[in-house]
């Protein structure tokens, strides 16, 4: 197969990345911001798999495997940080979490 031009996959990947960027910028709930970051990681994975498959080389897919490992570690630690913040401030609204803001 592979009859579809690879630009279509790359356009979908670019679209999902920009939607993730917009999600990080417009949402105020810290957990939804986190989910938007996951969306951006997935769009990067999609373009890596596209190039790996069209070039017939498995290194891109190995890289996707490591990205998934880092994403799992990041989700665990990030959600633990969000729980710790919620315990102290009773909110996950990132407009109200501003102790480092000057």
């Amino acid at each position, binding site marked *: *197969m*592979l009859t579809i031009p690879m630009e*279509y996959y790359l356009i979908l990947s670019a679209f*999902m990345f920009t939607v993730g*960027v917009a999600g990080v910028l*417009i949402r105020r*709930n810290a957990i939804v911001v986190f989910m938007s970051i996951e969306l951006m990681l997935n769009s990067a994975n999609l373009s890596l798999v596209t190039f790996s498959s069209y070039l017939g080389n498995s290194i891109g897919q190995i890289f996707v495997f490591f990205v998934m490992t880092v994403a799992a570690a990041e989700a665990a630690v990030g959600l633990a*940080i969000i729980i710790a913040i919620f315990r102290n401030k009773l909110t996950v609204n990132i407009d109200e979490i501003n102790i480092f803001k000057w």
Partner: protein
Amino acid sequence: MNIEIILFIVLASIAAVTSVMMITRKNAVISAVFLVLNFFSLAGLYLLLNAQFIAVVQVIVYAGAIMVLFLFVLMLLNTEAEHQLFVDKKGIKFFAIFIAVFVFIQLAFLIFKGAPSKSLNPDQAASIKAGTIQTIGQQLYTNYIIPFEVAGFLLLAATIGALVLAKKKFE
């Protein structure tokens, strides 16, 4: 229209629509469910790209483990829905959307201008071979053994870090 193009159109439109729905829903739990749908359609796209191992790992790790963690934290914290999503700070939010659209147009221009499909003709047999768990496992345990071990150590560190951070108080 062969079956590959039909599957691509269906899966790609599900992925695009669910990603937009995810950032526009007021209720965070509904956002998480749309993100799960997005991950499943991406797994289908990986299968179309002959990446069978990555497709299975996508369903198990992303749609399974990570999203269960997200939904667990969402329901544990019971955050209020963002009723003011497009009401307050309107100017900044529309500026953010404008920036995102502008970046997308730039990326699309670059992709179609670069046109990577014109300069390479995909080899179907090599592509299928690259996606099998046999090839990836062999590469992981020979050429990429040190990154593999480091990734395992990173997961250990993340487990300990999450335990320490989420614990009630420090002794």
